[in-house]
């Protein structure tokens, strides 16, 4: 997956390595270091893939420039998004505060209107007479269409 740079010439390999390589020690697989080398691998000399130094330098330069540009763009875009989110949140908070204020004002006005119907010392007698003259009946049911059904047994 990632190209592993390791082994004896780590320092030299680091100069010529492509930037995407991972500098890690080679990992042993199934066999430990005391196990003998397999018969088919006797005399094998492992060589890393050939790397053209000129090409590598040019590539490294180009890649580093490309990645720098991309990182800068990403940072810019993220900053813009964050700013926009903050603005939206601020606007929303503002709107909600206004809404709340308007709601409370509406309630106050409603209450002021209702206050005209409250009972005071002057209309106490009149209200008592009114109440005694008009008995109310809340003993009804409602079906889904909202039609009232009154079937109370008179006592």
């Amino acid at each position, binding site marked *: 997956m990632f190209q592993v740079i390791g082994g004896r010439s780590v320092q030299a390999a680091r100069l010529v390595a492509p930037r995407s390589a991972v500098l890690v020690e080679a990992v042993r697989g199934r066999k430990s270091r005391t196990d003998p080398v397999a018969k088919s691998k006797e005399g094998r000399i492992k060589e890393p893939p050939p790397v053209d130094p000129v090409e590598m330098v040019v590539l490294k330069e180009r890649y580093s420039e490309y990645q720098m540009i991309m990182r800068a763009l990403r940072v810019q875009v993220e900053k813009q998004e964050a700013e926009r989110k903050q603005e939206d949140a601020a606007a929303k908070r503002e709107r909600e505060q206004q809404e709340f204020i308007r709601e409370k004002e509406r309630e106050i006005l409603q209450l002021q209107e209702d206050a005209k*119907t*409250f*009972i005071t010392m002057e209309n106490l007698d009149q209200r*008592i007479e009114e*109440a*005694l003259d008009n008995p109310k*009946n*809340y003993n009804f049911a409602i079906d889904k269409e909202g039609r009232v059904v009154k079937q109370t047994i008179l*006592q």
Partner: protein
Amino acid sequence: MPRYELALILKTMQRPETAATLRRTVETLMERGAVVRNLENLGEKLLPYKMAKHNQSHTRGTYFLLDFYAAPSILNRLLDHLHRDVDVVRSTVLRKDPEVSNSNCCGPKS
């Protein structure tokens, strides 16, 4: 101030006496700093069961509904006063909560 509802059951009496009891109750409320909003009469009905109060057994009673705004600290004394009134069979004070708005915050998950 929170909004309360007094459900009052008065003894069956003649009209002037009922009026006098109601007047007494409302005046008590107003003395203690309540603002009475509305007084409703639910009629004279057969009580659901016999209620004994002040050495009398009642089978019929007149139901009244009184909503008012008051401080919560007066309720204890008020109920005490109503329990001592001979013409009152039963008095219950309930809180009237504001209606829950129908926003999409709670409800069955669907």
